[in-house]
C-alpha cells in the first residue's frame, strides 16, 4: 500500500535536513506504529506524505499503491485515499463542522468520479458515526474545532476519518491528551475501520494506545530515520526503558 524509499527531506526556507533516508513499507491491511523522541521528524513525515508546503524532498520516493505521492497536490492525495489525523487539528472559525465534512466528502467523491452523497444520506451517516464517537449533534453544528477541547478535537479527526473512509490512515499522536474513555472510543473507531484493504500508520509516544490498537509492526524513529523495527514488544520495551538503549544499539 504505502512504500517510502530512502526519503530525504529538508526545510524549504533553511538548510535543515529533517528526514535523512527514511524507508518504510506498509502492506495493505496492516497497522504500523512509529515511536520516537520529540523532534525526530515524525510529524514532518506525515506532512511530507500529505503534501504540506514548506518542505523539499531532495532524494527518495513515496508511493501509494505504486502511484508517486510526491508529485500530487494535497487534495489529489486525499482523494487517492491518504488521510492525516493532525497532531494539532486546525480551527476554522465560522465554518460549521458539518458543512466542512460534507464539502470534504463530496469533493473526494467528485474527484473519484463517484456520485455525491445526497443531504439525507449524508446526515444519516454522519449522525450514526458521530454517535459512535460520542460527538454530540451540537458539536457537529459548531465551527470546525473552534473552542473544542483537546480530546474533542482528536475525536473530531477520527470522525472525519470515518466519514472519508481513506485507504491509508496516518494518525499523528491522536492519543495525546485523550482521557481513558476517549482513548477507548477512538481505538474502537479505528478498530472498526480495520480491514484487509486499509492500512494505518499510527504515530504515538505511548504503548497504552497499542494495547487497544494492536500493531503489526512497531518502528522506532530517530534523527530522521527508522532505526529499528519489530513487533508489539518493541513498544513495551520503549515504555519500560525509554529510548536510550535502543538508540545506542542502533548507533
Amino acid at each position, binding site marked *: 500500500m504505502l512504500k517510502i524509499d530512502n526519503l530525504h527531506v529538508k526545510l524549504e526556507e533553511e538548510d535543515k535536513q529533517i528526514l535523512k533516508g527514511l524507508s518504510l513499507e506498509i502492506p495493505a491491511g496492516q497497522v504500523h506504529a512509529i515511536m520516537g523522541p520529540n523532534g525526530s521528524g515524525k510529524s514532518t513525515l506525515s506532512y511530507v506524505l500529505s503534501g504540506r508546503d514548506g518542505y523539499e524532498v531532495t532524494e527518495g520516493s513515496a508511493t501509494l499503491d505504486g502511484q508517486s505521492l510526491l508529485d500530487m497536490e494535497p487534495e489529489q492525495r*486525499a*482523494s487517492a485515499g491518504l488521510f492525516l489525523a493532525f497532531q494539532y487539528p486546525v480551527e476554522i472559525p465560522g*465554518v*460549521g463542522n458539518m*458543512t466542512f465534512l460534507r*464539502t470534504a466528502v*463530496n469533493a473526494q467523491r467528485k474527484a473519484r468520479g463517484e456520485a455525491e452523497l445526497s*443531504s439525507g444520506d449524508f446526515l444519516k451517516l454522519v449522525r450514526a458515526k458521530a454517535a459512535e464517537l460520542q460527538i454530540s449533534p451540537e458539536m457537529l453544528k459548531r465551527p470546525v474545532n473552534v473552542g473544542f477541547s483537546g480530546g474533542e478535537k482528536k475525536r473530531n479527526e477520527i470522525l472525519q476519518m470515518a466519514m*472519508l473512509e481513506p485507504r491509508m490512515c496516518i494518525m499523528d499522536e491522536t492519543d495525546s491528551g485523550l482521557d481513558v474513555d476517549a482513548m477507548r472510543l477512538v481505538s474502537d473507531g479505528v478498530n472498526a475501520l480495520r480491514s484487509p484493504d486499509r492500512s494505518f500508520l499510527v504515530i504515538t509516544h505511548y504503548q497504552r494506545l497499542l494495547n487497544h490498537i494492536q500493531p503489526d509492526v512497531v518502528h522506532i524513529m530517530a534523527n530522521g530515520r527508522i532505526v529499528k523495527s519489530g513487533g508489539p514488544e518493541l513498544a513495551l520495551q520503549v515504555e519500560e526503558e525509554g529510548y536510550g538503549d535502543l538508540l545506542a544499539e542502533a548507533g
Partner: protein
Amino acid sequence: MTATIDLEVREGVDRETVETVQSMGSYKYGWDTEIEMDYAPKGLNEDIVRLISQKNEEPEWMLEWRLEAYRRWITMTEPKWAMLNYPEIDYQDQYYYARPKSMEVKPKSLDEVDPKLLATYEKLGIPLKEQMILAGVEGALPSPGVDMAIAASEGRRVAVDAVFDSVSVGTTFKDELAKAGVIFCSISEAIREHPELVKKYLGSVVPQSDNYFATLNSAVFSDGSFVYVPKGVKCPMELSTYFRINAENTGQFERTLIIADKGSHVSYLEGCTAPKRDTHQLHAAVVEIVVLEDAEVKYSTVQNWYPGDEEGKGGIYNFVTKRADCREARAKVMWTQVETGSAITWKYPSCILRGDESQGEFYSIAIANNMQQADTGTKMIHLGRNTRSRIVSKGISAGKAQNTYRGLVTMHPRATNSRNYTQCDSLLIGDQCGAHTVPYIEVKNTSSRVEHEATTSKVDDDQLFYCRQRGMDEEEAVALVVNGFCREVLQALPMEFAMEAQSLVAISLEGSVG
C-alpha cells in the same frame, strides 16, 4: 427537532453554495441583451432634465424639484476624500436616459412586456411571472434570482420590481400587496399615482443638496422603487428590486423611497448586475428610508455590478447614498450589504437615530479583488435618547485591490444613554492588496458609550492545507474559509439571499490564490 431542520437547511445552503461556485465561471452576468433603445442625447443640461421628467409624465412640481437639484449640482464639485483612485469622470460623455423602445407605451401588465426583456430577467433567474414564482423556476441558471426561485418553491414569495437601464419593466404581486394596503411600484408611477406621499417624503432623508452624487441623482433619476407600508401592517412577502444596466455608456440613476408607517414591518432586497463592457459606467443611486414609530425595516443588498477585468478595464463606478431615518420612537432599521462588484464603490448606508430608543444596524461584507477599490462603511447618527447601533463590517481584499472601511458614529448631546458597538474585521489574501480602517467617533454626552474593535488577518495557510488534506481544491478551500470569516453577516441576510451571497463571495475571489 426544529434545530435539526434548521441545521439541515443551513447545511443545504452551504452545500449548494459550493456547488454553485463550482458550476460558475467568473462573472456570469456579463452577457448583454440586444434590444432597440431610445436614448436621450448624450450629456447633461436642463433640457435633458426636462426630457426625463417629460418621459416619466411627471407633474410640474417634480420637474421643478429636479431643476433645483440640477442648478445646485452644477455649482458643486466631486468629493475626493475617499481612498479611491479613478480618472476624471466626463459627465457630458454619458447618456442619462435609455429606455427599451418597446417600453414607450407603458405595458399595462407583465403579459404585455417585450418577451426579450422578460427573457433577460429569466436568464438572470429573476421570477417576473407570478405563476412562475408559485411554481418555482425550473432550469434557471445559478444566479441572483435562483434564491428567489428557491424561496418561491418553498412557498415563500418575493415580489419583484425589475428596473432595466432607466425604466421599471414591471412589478409583480402588486394587487396582492395592495390588498394588504402595501404600495409597491416604480417611483415614476408613485410620482403620478401617490403624489401626496412622494411630496411629503422625497428628499426628506437625503436632501437634494446632500452631496455631489445625490444631487446629481435628484436631477436625473429616471426610475426606481417605491414602497409604502401602512400603519400596523406586516408586509406579507419580501419585496425586492432587481437593477440591470444594459445599455452602453449609460449611467443608471435610480431612486428608491421606502416609508414604513407606525408599527409596520418590511424586508426589502436589492440585487444588481451589468454586462461586461470595456468602458466604465456610472451608477449613482439614492435610497431613502423613513421609519416611523415602532416600525421595522430590513434592507438587504447584494451588489454584483460588473467589477471590471483583471487589469481594471471596464466596470461600474458605484456612488450610492443610502440613508434611513428612524424618525420616531423605537423605530428600527437594519442594513445588510454584500458588496462584491463594481470597479469603484463609494457607499455608506447610514442611520439617523432620531426617535428615542430607535435602533440601527449595519452588517457588511465588502470584497475587492484584482483592481477593484471599495470605500464603504456607515454612519450612525445618534440623536434620540437610549438609541442603539451595531456595526459589523467584514472587508476582504485580494489581488491588487484596496478596501477601506470608513465609519462615523456620533452621539449628540441629547442622545443620552446610547450605545454603539462596532466590529471591523479585514482579511487579506495575498500581499499586494490593502485594507484600511477609518473610524470617526464623536461622543458629545457623558452617559453614552461607543465600543470599537478591529482586526486584520491573512488567510491562514494551515487552514487551507487542512481543507485540502480533506480533499478540497484550493479555491474551494479559500471559499470555505472566507465564508466562515463572513458568517456573522451572511446570517443577517434573509434566507432568499444567503445562498447567492455565499456563492458570490467565492466567485469574487476566483483566481486570488495559487
